[in-house]
């Protein structure tokens, strides 16, 4: 197979780069598949970096796509078991438990820089397609930031992404997330009753 020989080295390079780049994920999947062909060459360190990257690519399916390719007998062992759990918690939006578990698995995840930030982005993504306004403590739980750091985080989001913070009553804050098609249905495009060109073309002979 062309390129197979040189692949692990490239992968090392890919996962060692500092910034997270979603475009490399398909290359990573290809690597996972190569390992499927030659299971004796499995490199657990590289695999766990790939899976960390795949979690960071949420809401994309990268993690599941990798798991479809990893033999089951590996999946029941560590670190794959932990990864599966982490993915499950993200998929079901159980952020509090996720962050607790991520904390316990620090050693595994910290090898890839930007992990925390990528998951926070995912959490913000799912919250903003679900909510127009979200209570501060719910947001705090989802991004795993609280207290003064959260104030700072919110101030930055207000400035950069158009968030707003409303104080509802004494000590209770509500974060207003920017409008999108999902949290504001009035933005949604109305699907009109359109007829495809192909359909019309078929009618031509009848009408002539």
């Amino acid at each position, binding site marked *: 197979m062309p390129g197979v020989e040189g692949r692990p080295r490239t992968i090392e390079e890919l996962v060692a780069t500092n910034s997270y780049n979603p475009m490399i994920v398909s290359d990573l999947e290809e690597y996972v598949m190569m390992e499927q062909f030659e299971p004796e060459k499995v490199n657990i360190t590289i695999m766990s970096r790939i899976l960390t990257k795949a979690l960071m690519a949420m809401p994309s399916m990268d993690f*599941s796509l990798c798991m479809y390719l990893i033999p089951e007998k590996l999946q029941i062992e560590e670190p794959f078991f932990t990864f599966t759990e982490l993915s499950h918690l993200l998929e*079901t939006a159980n952020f509090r438990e996720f962050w607790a578990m991520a904390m316990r698995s620090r050693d595994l995840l910290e090898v890839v820089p930007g992990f925390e930030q990528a998951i926070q982005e995912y959490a913000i993504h799912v919250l903003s397609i*679900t909510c127009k306004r979200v209570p501060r403590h719910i947001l705090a739980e989802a991004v795993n930031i609280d207290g003064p750091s959260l104030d700072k985080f919110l101030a930055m989001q207000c400035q950069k992404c158009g968030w707003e913070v409303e104080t509802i009553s004494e000590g209770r804050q509500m974060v207003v997330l920017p409008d999108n098609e999902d949290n504001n249905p009035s933005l949604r495009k109305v699907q009109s009753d359109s007829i495809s060109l192909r359909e019309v073309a078929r009618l031509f002979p009848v009408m002539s």
Partner: protein
Amino acid sequence: MAYEAYARGGDSRDGREGHDSRDWREPREPRERDSREYRDARESRDGREYRDARDHRDAREDVRDRRDGYDEREERENLPRTHDVDENGQYVVPDVVKTFVAYFYRHIREKNVYEIHQMYDGSWNKLSERMFTTTLWPPVEAIAPFVDNDHVFCLLYKEMYFRHVYATVQPTLAQRCESWENYCNLFQVILHGNVNMQLPNLWLWDMIDEFIYQFQNFCQYRAKLKSRTEEELTALRQCEQVWNIFGVLNYLKALIESSHIVDILEEESGGNLTFTATDGYDYQGGSNVLKVLGYFSIVGLLRVHCLLGDYHGALRCLSPIDINQQGVFTRVIGCHITTMYYYGFANMMMRRYVEAIKAFNSVLLYIVRTQQYHSKSVQYDQIMKKNEQMCALLAICLSLCPQAKLVEENIHNQLREKLGEKMLRMQRCDEATYDELFSYACPKFITPSAPNFDEPPMNYNQDAYRLQLKLFLTEVRQQQLVPSIRSFLKLYTTIPISKLASYMDINESTLRAGLTSYKHKTHSVDADRNIISNADIDFYIDGEMIHVVEPKTTRRFGDHFSRHILRFEEITRELERMELPV
């Protein structure tokens, strides 16, 4: 008798009166797809107009009088029933087979696609049915003298020979190896541009289809080690290169690359439909073989990647072909069904349910509409099996993503009739039903790597399937709350989170997570990483209050009317044709 026919056929090629009266054997398709493939091929040859199937049937009576060309009916009376060896240990080739291969060879040399197709799809199957139901076709050495020992023809013959072996008996390891070697030789010859044949698309598709089938079959075979004898294990160990995953992928990729099919298809997207307009045939005297094999290899890669569980790679391989348009892949029934089945399946596994539903809907509709034409086809049972499997997959997708409006009415009726009760159970998150339908309808997954022969022999042929099933059921489990949230949302326009939580008998934070996950799961990420909503019932949360978004149901009248205009036109035309009794 047969030789007489051959001899006479040799010089009467110009006056082919009876040409059109051939029994039409390939599955016929309705109106716009009207067997264009072969009509085009023939028009180019003798500029003759294609006649409707009705004429064929009427003219069948004349067939017996015709002496031109090969007709296996003539041999019916004196068929040899057994295939013995003579006193010298030589295989005795039945006369009818001698004639068959001689004609077949001649038509291939003359690039007579129409006749090749007739013999390939018709005569071969008829002879197989009549003479070789329990025995094999004569070995290639036995027929070689009747075809000038032509190297390429022998490779083609063996391709068909082994296909028949796989369909008739459980192939031995030696046969598996020989067949692999034959495909390697055949593809090598084609890849090096040493052929100038013109072969029917159906055959070229069957080659790719069978190549992958035998590969998958070998992986299954190799994975069953438990009851093997020591000799068998030793033999298997020596077959490392046979049906090797890299080899299989490399051949498919090489066919795609050497044929430049991706460039050709890219040009077509700019409106230059040279490939599709001729269905891949070459009327300038060139060969269609490499080009079309390259094209079908794209679908082949889709399938191999799906069998490995690499759904992302599968869809990426298919990307040169636009499945929303008619193309060469829709001209061959088997290819059309295979493409849509694996495309739909990969999308389902990637949670792109809407895309999967559309694919299954369109191909199931196609099968229903063309049913009467392929009911006589040799592939009928296979087509129906895939039909049932795709119904099951569609039922799964619709249970996870209720988008009934994407499905045509008669497909809906088919589903309700066959799987109505199971769909109800799946909508209640009954895992056993998901398990049952998935297991019935999924591809035959494979483990591509060779076993470790130093470990005690065991069977691992089910491993790949079990993994895909397990991961699929994990996905189902993660969506457990979705149906009940959905059914509650249907009842309200607004409802506080606390109230819904108490109705559902779960705590508020579980419900919040459930609602957020509902949103996540009802969105899919497409190939360009755009995030698209697939929800039929939608909502948003404002603080502590859930607001349900009324789905705007705009009925699509356009579709309905255009369909009925066409149907009406058809009925009027039918009525006009009728002769009224005076």
